């Protein structure tokens, strides 16, 4: 017989969890005590619970494992909500273990009590309140099972303190069966045959892929398929790295800040092969405008509710992307001839490419795009890049060419500022020794800046690329373009001296103000200071904007290009 707290830790050991990100407090003291008495599960003490969840999230994004966070009741839980919602929107498998006040106090407005299950319900894949210590192991097993299967997502397990003190036999189930939860994995063969037939008839095809390709580890299969088809490929923000960005078939990211060629190819395609992507508003722009073109859509997704949600789909295929691509490849081996007119389509795409829509103006100041380009060169295109949310995120997505999956770590769905630094922590712990850069801005970085302390404690040598324009850049860009330059609250005054700030935490700080210093500074950071966290404060051109841009409510082809301004 062991205590509930020991059961929690044993479960984590059984799940081969090597890191838990957390913050202790009253309701989880028994669990922290059990944690103390063993060495298999290592704990990373963050400085704010939000960061614990972000780090666990990135740990998962950059590996194939389930991220785990552990927090106390009440404020510990409410602080995790942003992180849970972030993971939920991007379908990241994660288990969040929360302390709760003792069972008999629940509902009495006890100290540090909150309705955890109620507060998190709309932003979790599922959640549990454990009411009996005998249910604890099975509940945690279910949590890992639900988080990591089907369309992945965060699962919260709320554990009252008295449960962690009670004892019972420990028996960790090998597998778990739930009559109410049986996600479909294999695609319907008839539908897959239909899809292959349509691909053969396509004259202006496009392969449009999203985060689902990354999550199901199908990047390799996608590449094989795309090469066999010789069709153009575009990725969503979440899908970057799912197909090698340096490949000639890649037409770039699509959507609000997608390339001219990607957006046009998507809009004018006669056949769209959508794989693990969900036609969201940042991708297709105005749905009425998008619906004006006649086309056939094949949609592969593990979540039936993603299909025909925003765009009518002709051939829905519900299943795991990896398995479905397998089936498609098998069918194609039986003979596949693409339509010869695809060659004309490529000519059209090359013409669109000729617009060179990612060209940007030169300046005496540092251009943010240039910093990302140099970062790409210096890291050999092989770094893990985390980002926050705003202009810098788009610059990183547009100019860092991701050839591998799980290298681009950002909050695509929820768009959470502040994730970049804790994301870097999670990535480094999952991939020790890797190059990790956090491309951020002076607005976002301050939302979780306290984690510089965590990075010192665990010696996490993240390279922070702070694209500092003294402005909430994306807000400023919209205000410049759509609000007659009324810059309401989009400037950031009273900024700290980031160099001194970094140094005060025991890190290396650099301030880079001239374009010619960008590359040497980056080289220095990644060589001389390889093992140190380096806060690189790049003072950039404050007028730099992200282009191309599809304004809100506009059609995908109604792009504003840099030269239009």
């Amino acid at each position, binding site marked *: 017989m062991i205590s509930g707290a020991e059961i929690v830790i044993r479960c984590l050991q059984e799940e081969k969890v090597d890191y838990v990100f957390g913050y202790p407090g009253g309701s989880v003291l028994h669990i922290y005590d059990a944690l103390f008495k063993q060495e298999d599960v290592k704990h990373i003490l963050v400085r704010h619970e939000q960061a614990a969840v972000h780090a666990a999230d990135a740990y998962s994004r950059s590996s194939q494992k389930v991220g785990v966070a552990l927090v106390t009741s009440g404020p510990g839980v409410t602080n995790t909500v942003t992180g849970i919602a972030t993971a939920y929107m991007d379908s990241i498998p994660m288990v969040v273990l929360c302390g709760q006040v003792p069972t008999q106090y629940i509902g009495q407005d006890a100290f540090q009590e909150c309705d955890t299950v109620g507060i998190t*319900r709309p932003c979790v894949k*599922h959640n549990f*309140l454990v009411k009996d210590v005998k249910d604890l192991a099975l509940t945690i097993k279910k949590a890992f099972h639900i988080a990591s299967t089907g*369309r992945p997502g965060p699962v919260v397990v709320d554990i009252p303190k008295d449960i962690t003190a009670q004892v019972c036999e420990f028996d960790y189930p090998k597998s778990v069966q*739930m*009559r*109410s939860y049986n996600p479909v994995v294999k695609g319907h063969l008839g539908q897959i045959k239909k899809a292959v037939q349509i691909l053969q008839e396509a004259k202006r095809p496009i392969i449009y892929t999203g985060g689902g390709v990354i999550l199901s580890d199908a990047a390799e299969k996608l590449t094989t398929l795309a090469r066999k088809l010789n069709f153009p490929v575009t990725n969503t923000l979440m899908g970057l790295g799912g197909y090698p960005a340096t490949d000639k078939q890649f037409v770039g990211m699509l959507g609000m800040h997608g390339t001219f060629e990607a957006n046009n190819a998507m809009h004018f395609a006669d056949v769209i092969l959508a794989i693990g992507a969900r036609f969201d508003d940042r991708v297709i722009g105005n749905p009425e405008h998008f619906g004006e073109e006649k086309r056939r859509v094949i949609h592969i997704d593990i979540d*039936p509710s993603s299909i*025909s949600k925003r765009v009518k789909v002709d051939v829905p295929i519900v299943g795991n992307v990896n398995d479905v691509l397998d089936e498609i490849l098998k069918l194609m081996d039986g003979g596949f001839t693409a339509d010869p007119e695809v060659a004309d389509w490529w000519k059209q795409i090359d013409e669109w490419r000729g617009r060179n829509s990612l060209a940007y103006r030169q300046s005496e100041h540092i251009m943010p795009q240039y910093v990302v380009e140099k970062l790409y060169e210096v890291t050999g295109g092989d770094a893990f890049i985390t980002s926050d949310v705003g202009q810098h995120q788009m610059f990183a997505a547009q100019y860092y060419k991701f050839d591998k999956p799980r290298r681009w770590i950002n909050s695509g769905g929820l768009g959470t500022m502040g994730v970049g630094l804790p994301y870097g922590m999670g990535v480094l712990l999952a991939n020790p020794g890797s190059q990790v850069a956090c491309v951020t801005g002076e607005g976002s970085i301050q939302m979780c800046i306290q984690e510089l302390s965590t990075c010192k404690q665990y010696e996490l040598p993240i390279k922070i690329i702070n694209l500092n324009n003294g402005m909430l850049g994306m807000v400023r860009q919209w205000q410049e373009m759509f609000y007659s330059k009324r810059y309401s609250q989009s400037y950031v005054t009273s900024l700290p001296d980031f160099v001194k700030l970094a140094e005060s935490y025991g890190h290396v700080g650099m301030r880079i103000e001239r374009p010619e210093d960008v590359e040497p500074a980056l080289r220095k950071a990644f060589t001389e200071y390889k093992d140190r966290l380096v806060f690189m404060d790049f003072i950039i051109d404050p007028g730099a904007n992200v282009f191309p841009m599809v304004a809100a409510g506009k059609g995908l082809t109604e792009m504003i290009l840099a030269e239009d301004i």
Partner: protein
Amino acid sequence: MRHIISILIENEAGALSRVAGLFSARGYNIESLTVAPTEDPSLSRMTILTWGSDEVLEQITKQLNKLVDVVKVVDLSEAAHVERELMLIKVRATGKDREEMKRMADIFRGRIIDVTESTYVIELTGASSKLDSFIAALDAGLILETVRTGVCGIGRGDRILKV
């Protein structure tokens, strides 16, 4: 279009709020909702009356199926089914109205299940439209209180919703 959605759901604490939360979060309508355990006490059967286009209904059923506690979902109104709703209505029953109320209850095949000197409680079962008609047939000034269960329904013949 009016739809009746039947759900088999794990009889767990919070299961109802997952369904209700889904409807409010995604902006779907709930006209009525009834829920009670089935012959298997580990399962609850929920019936939701909702309105929406075919696309919205497709999303509603898909989203419901996604809830981990939901075992099965069916749109009853897609095929032959029967539906019933129970209403208890308290009416003033004095003077000449007392006899009239009794007559009306008989016409609609309602039953008077509580009697005082001045009031009746009438129990009426049927399709929602029948209950509506009954209310419309009464003098509004005489209605003291109404309570309706909301629609519940079941498929005809071999259409069975079971685990």
